[in-house]
């Protein structure tokens, strides 16, 4: 009786779902479908868009810029251990009771709510030839003349790795700190009594307890290199100098909005989607299965 009653009632429910489907369909799904279709055409918005089959994809594979992009992405991925270790150390330092935890948490966390657009403007000033970093280094005498952090091909990617570490450490710290509350404090106390030092307690007591959260974070960081570096590149380097900091998403943007190569950019974007999907589909189940570090 109740069942059929709710059944009848719930039939009219679809109104709750429609706004979401319309919004997501109009903004994300339909446009993404159009992009996938046009990745097989020489897309000229407003004009003829002849079918070119796989030509855009073949062009992507043979374009010399693609090699640069692969190299840049690989170098940025070297940052993942740093982006994981830093928040782990901070979270554990905050986990074992200390003074002013709230203050430290707020300080480390604040950059995580700022966007690349905002921190980027700030970092342009900090990394400029006459900016904070150079002034400090010149003052101490470590360097003789200002370092061009963002304008030298050999320095731009390491600089980005450090900026990203600065920006992401807060989110990781908050996440790991939350995970650590599930670690049995008696185990930590026992380890301490047995003479385990701070790093040993982190390595052998805490890390095994939160291994799957750490694994998730690692996968998320890898995905981020493909999905979320755009804002930083856009504000700080514009992909340069040359192509030395161009990532796939930035090249898509350049090709579509600066070079007018809409079909080619769409093919690149489809490849980006496939890569992100593979990382997530392979990575998250692996992370879920991680038990011990």
């Amino acid at each position, binding site marked *: 009786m109740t069942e059929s009653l709710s059944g009848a009632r719930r039939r*009219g*429910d*679809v109104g*709750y*779902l429609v*706004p*979401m489907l319309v*919004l*997501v369909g109009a*903004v*994300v799904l339909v*446009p*993404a479908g*159009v*992009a*996938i279709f046009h990745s097989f055409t020489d897309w000229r918005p407003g004009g003829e868009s002849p079918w070119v089959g796989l030509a855009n994809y073949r062009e992507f594979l043979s374009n010399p810029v693609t090699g640069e992009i692969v190299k840049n992405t690989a170098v940025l991925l070297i940052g993942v251990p740093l982006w994981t270790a830093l928040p782990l150390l*901070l979270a554990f*330092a905050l986990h*074992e009771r*200390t003074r*002013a935890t709230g203050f*430290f948490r707020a*300080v480390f*966390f*604040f950059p995580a709510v*700022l*966007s*690349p*657009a*905002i921190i980027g*403007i*700030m970092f*342009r*000033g900090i990394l*400029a030839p*006459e900016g*904070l970093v150079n002034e400090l280094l010149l*003052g101490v005498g470590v360097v003789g003349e200002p370092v061009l952090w963002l304008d030298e091909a050999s320095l731009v990617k390491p600089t980005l790795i450090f900026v990203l570490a*600065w920006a992401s450490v807060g*989110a990781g710290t*908050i996440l790991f700190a939350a995970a650590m509350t599930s670690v049995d404090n008696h185990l930590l106390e026992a380890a*301490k009594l047995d003479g385990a030092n*701070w790093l040993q307690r982190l390595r052998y007591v805490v890390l095994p307890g939160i291994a799957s*959260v750490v694994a998730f974070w690692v996968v*998320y960081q890898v*995905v981020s290199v493909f*999905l979320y570096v*755009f*804002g930083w590149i*856009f*504000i700080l380097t514009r992909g340069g100098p040359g192509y030395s900091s161009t990532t796939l998403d930035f090249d*898509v943007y350049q090709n579509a*909005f600066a070079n007018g190569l*809409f079909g080619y*950019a*769409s093919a690149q974007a489809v490849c980006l*989607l496939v890569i*992100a*999907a593979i990382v*997530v589909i392979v990575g998250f189940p692996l992370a879920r299965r991680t038990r011990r570090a």
Partner: protein
Amino acid sequence: MTNTTSQRFKFLVLLVACVPFIYPFAFMFFTAMRPSEDYLESRLGLPTALTLEHVTYALDNAELGRGILNSMIAVGTGVAIVVVVSALGAYWFLRHSGRVANLLLGAILSLWIVPFVIYIIPLFVMLSDAGLTDNLLVLGAVYGAINVPFGLYLLYAYFRDAIPSEILQAAEVDGASGWQTFVRIVLPLSRPALATLAALAFVWTWGDLVISLILIQSSERFTLTVAASTLAGRFDSEPQANAAAALIALLPILIVFLFAQRAIRSGLTAGFGK
């Protein structure tokens, strides 16, 4: 206690670790607020005096005041849309749990991995054809849509775990309609989650640059970050104006952060789930 020295040492290390996180903000603040003569003398230390000169200059030259207003319209629209749409959708998924519903839920949630560069190109073309670019409300709707997968995730998990199903059943037995249950029971009980979603959607979209750069053309509709950053190039030779622009762009987020830090934190950790 034997570990007081190590406690003190750790506290000291944490204090030192704070420096790279506080000093850049202090540097930016002082660069924006110190008199020009002061800046030429020394850039690193405390200023000898404070002035609003550069802030006023940035506000006037980059039209940041209008930018703040435009950002509020677009971001406000986006926050309202994502909260309403996600709450309605999450309520539907709370009431429907068949195989189709689960598939649909998974499909919408997995949209977060769709890179924005794939849909922004056709979206721009379609909106231009429809004459809908250069419109802050449309920009707001796009902001809302982008945050829907997260909003659905957060609210669905909250509805499912924090609202006892007995309450929902009791309401149904008492003859409350689905809409009455939603408005009088589900929404009031979910206020913390709704606040978290609103705060996160605010800070995420307030900082957007590229989407508004693509969808807005006329300078009188520029959002704050666009206004601040397109002029950041021009300000590169005027570091103090640049710092002032960054300071103005950052202030609203700092305010939201100070008031909603706990909510934002809980939202981020929930976002990682298990």
